[in-house]
């Protein structure tokens, strides 16, 4: 029996992916709206108005079928193992969503007087104290709207503290070569000169390189602990001491906090500012690229400079929000992504302190299990026990490059690891399992990687064509970038 040709299916698939404007038919609508119930008012003069508005005209049923179909073209945590290194793609509890959608939270307006929003303010205050406890730092601002904005806000807080003590000439910011790209980008936006610091062969920061830069123009260092190599950096505590002794301050990127929950506190190591990604460590959903939240916690010395507003508890037990005395200002119009904050608060409250220990313990165990089981397939650039993730180099088998292995994983229903990052590891595959995956899932993942390795051994070319089973095959990214098509346009244009 011959199999059905797949062309008809593909055409149908194409049809199901028609854009909204291609589906639009004059006269259709997806909504019912009331007529005006007030006496007619004068309309503005015609010259102020437009008559060219183009928006789709489609029915509710069409919208539902279209977006449901689109959703089914995605991998997600709810449908797939998603071992994307440094992204902490853990299960996102549905309770978080239910709480955030509670009308009292969802319909609270950010400009209401404090007396009307005590529930929101108390929630923020409580989360503030929890994050201070987790980080080991005494003050916090929950205003930053994402991790990268937390970095910018944190590094500006650091800069303001330097400026206030007469150290405005300190503009050199050290950043390890393993750092996430947001670190140098944030430092540059904050007006610092970025100096890249190498790592040792053991995967720790090179202390000699730090000492060589530790002069009186040193502003500080931006450092991720555990590092993007998935390692607890054994030199970082000494690095903090060296930087402090030289008069600099230390910024801690808490992107990988999942490994440390309840195990250690960044503030104890000597970090002066720490940002956290609530959409990683504290289980708020990533949403295909946000929203996130990037609260920052700081030492007492830096607290007066924090971005605001910050929620305070007043003597009468009520809550209010205030700008710190020498605040660096506002990073957005409101007081943070409250909808994300309330999800994180729900998560921490549900699991409590002992739950935090279970998270870090199982996340680290899962990563080390993958390390032990996969080391025969890949090179291991730093052969030591890891924290929340493990970074391999896909260099053992011709044809089984990081890209090709990643693409073939998609065919088996596994999302790819982070590829080609950190930059210091050629052919890097950065795998972060998180604590919410079972041993059975990890074993299936391991088995799949072994099969892929066998496929590459049998036919060097085979993986280059992957993925074969996904809704679409490899895309021509060069074409997209050479002549950017960034929106639908009517045919006659």
């Amino acid at each position, binding site marked *: 029996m011959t199999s059905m040709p797949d062309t008809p299916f593909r055409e149908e698939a194409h049809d199901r992916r028609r854009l909204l404007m291609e589906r639009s038919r004059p006269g259709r609508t997806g909504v019912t709206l009331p007529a005006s119930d007030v006496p007619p008012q004068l309309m503005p003069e015609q010259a102020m108005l437009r008559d060219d508005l183009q928006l789709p005209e489609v029915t509710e049923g069409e919208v539902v079928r279209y977006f449901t179909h689109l959703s089914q073209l995605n991998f997600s945590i709810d449908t797939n193992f998603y071992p994307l290194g440094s992204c902490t793609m853990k299960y996102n509890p549905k309770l978080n969503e239910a709480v955030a959608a509670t009308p009292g939270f969802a319909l609270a307006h950010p400009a209401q007087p404090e007396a009307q929003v005590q529930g929101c303010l108390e929630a923020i205050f409580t989360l503030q104290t929890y994050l201070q406890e987790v980080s080991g730092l005494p003050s916090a601002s929950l205003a930053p709207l994402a991790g990268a904005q937390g970095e910018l806000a944190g590094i500006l807080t650091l800069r303001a503290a330097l400026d206030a003590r007469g150290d405005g000439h300190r503009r050199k910011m050290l950043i390890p070569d393993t750092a996430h790209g947001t670190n140098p980008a944030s430092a540059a936006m904050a007006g610092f000169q970025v100096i890249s610091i190498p790592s040792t062969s053991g995967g720790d920061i090179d202390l000699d390189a730090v000492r060589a830069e530790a002069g009186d123009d040193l502003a500080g260092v931006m450092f991720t602990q555990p590092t993007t190599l998935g390692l607890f950096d054994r030199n970082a505590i000494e690095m903090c001491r060296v930087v402090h002794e030289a008069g600099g301050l230390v910024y801690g990127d808490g992107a990988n906090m999942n490994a440390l929950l309840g195990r250690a506190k960044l503030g104890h190591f000597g970090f002066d500012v720490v940002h956290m990604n609530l959409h990683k460590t504290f289980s708020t959903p990533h949403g295909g690229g946000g929203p996130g939240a990037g609260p920052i916690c700081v030492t007492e010395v830096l607290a007066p400079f924090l971005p605001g507003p910050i929620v305070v508890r007043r003597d009468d037990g009520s809550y209010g929000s205030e700008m710190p005395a020498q605040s660096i200002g506002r990073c957005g119009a409101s007081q943070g992504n409250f909808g994300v904050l309330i999800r994180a608060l729900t998560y921490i409250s549900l699991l409590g302190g002992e739950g935090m220990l279970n998270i870090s313990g199982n996340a680290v165990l899962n990563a080390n299990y993958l390390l032990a089981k996969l080391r025969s397939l890949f090179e291991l650039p730093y052969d030591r026990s890891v924290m929340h993730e493990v970074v391999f180099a896909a260099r053992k088998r011709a044809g089984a490059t990081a890209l090709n292995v990643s693409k073939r994983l998609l065919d088996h229903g596994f999302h790819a690891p982070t590829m080609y990052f950190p930059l210091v590891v050629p052919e890097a595959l950065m795998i972060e399992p998180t604590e919410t995956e079972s041993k059975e899932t990890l074993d299936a993942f391991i088995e799949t990687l072994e099969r892929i390795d066998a496929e590459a051994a049998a036919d060097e070319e085979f993986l280059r064509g992957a993925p074969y089973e996904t809704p679409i095959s490899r895309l021509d*990214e*060069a074409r997209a*970038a*050479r002549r950017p098509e960034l929106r639908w346009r009517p045919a006659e244009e």
Partner: protein
Amino acid sequence: MSVPEDRRYSKEHEWALAERDGLVLVGITDFAQHELGDVVYVELPKPGDRVTQNAQMGEVESVKAVSELFSPVSGEVTAVNDDVKNAPELLNESPHEKGWLIRVKPDDPAELDSLLDAPAYAALIE
């Protein structure tokens, strides 16, 4: 990897070709385009701008990387290849011919002598 004998090369993988009218044509080498992968965008100086030997004169972007372009000669830009601005793939398809970048009126034609000749450049990229 093609390394034409008719021109000189910089260590930064640009070539410089002396033309009959005393002008110098500048581009990137076959090796450079190969290393970059699919070139998607080129940022170049404008006619009338000055370029300086070994100083940055523009940028070339591939899908997931960006590299600085360094001028192999000093002088005034007299022409820019608009074709590569509109079709950056020319840098991949024809780096030594259709994918040329700028034409320069050199301050000192002897400056080209400080560049590598073809055998030396071929040795560099071995």
